[in-house]
């Protein structure tokens, strides 16, 4: 049974701020009519269980997901995408309990791949990681509001972030159709071309990568690898999953230069390996604990990713000078692994796989 409040229309916003229901920005008042429209569009009922976080005895039900989606500003058409994101986030491998609590301050990074990017009007092109698009902004925000309001991840409660970052308000990457010869992320993960998938990553903020003058594919990839090898990044040398948003000029240079996505991943996995001396030049000491046992391999280096498949290449962004972005996981894979769900068609209920 969902609790409700009846109050003067003009008082609703202040009441929601007062109760700590928002992320600090105004929200849309979640009226029963707006919430029901969300549920109806997706074909779910209020009590459907999207997922659970057993460590804190919390269950995310469809009505709570819908209420938070309304508050975030979502249109009903976006709600199946929100449900897929939440279902992925609540898979045990993702480790939501830790992700939304850690001092590291992880974003709940949503990556949307497939036909719904265009059909629902996500922005995958100019300013793809920036503001100005309702779908991008509100779907990511809905996921964060669920973490705050349902899982209890608030600054005065179970969110222990030391700093956090702006991506914790909302963070969504919509995939632009990749160049010829490159598969979309969802297809690489085993789904069909006509499927739209949502992948969830627990991440730091995006680190912008600039390479404006070098059109040589290998030169571009060495710049990517340099970004991945930065000693100041927590996961360097520890084995994590990385998202690389491959910008317009860079993806064209790579694809037209004959580089396949597997070849790019292989190159980056190898060239982002670091020596203890590289880390020492940045003042970083090796961690030797059960969770992060930083023992160099036979080549004297430590893997920043555990293998090429841990590098997820997502194409987005418009023509410019030559920009991409490196989005490292907030922690190594021992803590959290990305999870993916296919978006269910409208009226078809919860996303099942």
């Amino acid at each position, binding site marked *: 049974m*969902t609790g*409700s409040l*009846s109050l003067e229309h003009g008082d*609703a916003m202040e009441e929601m701020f007062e109760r700590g229901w928002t992320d600090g920005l105004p929200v849309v008042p979640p*009226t029963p009519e707006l919430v029901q429209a969300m549920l109806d569009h997706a074909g779910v009922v209020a009590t459907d269980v999207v997922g659970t976080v057993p460590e804190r005895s919390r269950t995310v039900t469809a009505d709570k997901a819908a209420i938070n989606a309304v508050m975030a500003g979502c249109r009903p058409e976006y709600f199946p995408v929100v449900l897929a994101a939440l279902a992925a986030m609540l898979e045990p491998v993702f480790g939501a309990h*830790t992700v939304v609590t850690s001092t590291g301050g992880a974003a709940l990074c949503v990556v949307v791949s497939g036909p719904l990017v265009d059909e629902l009007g996500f922005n995958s092109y100019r300013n793809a990681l920036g503001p100005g698009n309702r779908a991008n902004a509100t779907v990511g925000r809905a996921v964060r509001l669920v973490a705050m309001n349902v899982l209890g991840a608030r600054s005065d409660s179970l969110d222990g972030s*030391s700093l956090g970052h702006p991506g914790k308000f909302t963070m969504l990457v919509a995939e632009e159709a990749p160049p010829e010869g490159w598969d979309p992320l969802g297809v690489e993960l085993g789904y069909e071309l006509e499927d739209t998938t949502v992948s969830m990553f627990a991440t730091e903020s995006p680190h912008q990568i600039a390479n404006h003058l070098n059109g040589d594919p290998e030169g571009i990839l060495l710049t990517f690898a340099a970004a991945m090898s930065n000693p100041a990044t927590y996961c360097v040398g520890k084995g994590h999953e990385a998202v690389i948003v491959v910008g317009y000029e860079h993806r064209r240079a790579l694809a037209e230069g004959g580089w396949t996505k597997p070849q790019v991943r292989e190159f980056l996995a190898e060239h982002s390996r670091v020596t203890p001396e590289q880390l020492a030049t940045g003042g970083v000491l090796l961690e030797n604990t*059960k969770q992060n046992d930083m023992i160099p391999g036979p080549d004297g280096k430590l893997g920043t990713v555990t293998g090429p498949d841990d590098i997820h290449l997502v194409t987005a962004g418009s023509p410019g000078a030559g920009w991409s972005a490196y989005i490292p996981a907030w922690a190594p894979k021992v803590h959290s692994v990305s999870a993916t769900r296919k978006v269910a068609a409208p009226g078809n209920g919860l996303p099942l796989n």
Partner: protein
Amino acid sequence: MSLITILSPEFEADAPELVPMAARTVPTDPVTITIIDNAKPKAKELLGYIAEGLRDRLPVADVVVHSKSAAGKPIDADVAEMLAARSHLVISGLGD
């Protein structure tokens, strides 16, 4: 002025049944202390230091260390039961 009804976005559940705290007693027989090393840097050392400090206050027979694979991973229920069965006192919980 018009009234508006809004729904709560928060998790709602019946209040859990209250469980009384275990009796606070000072043991006289030798006790086993288990430390749960949560795999954070220096966790084992710090918790071990606390356990050793308890030797001045309790008749400590043994200090056992259980190391988790990662800080964010919960202990399985059967492991928790095993730790409870073999220990008189368990020290867990450590942030950065």
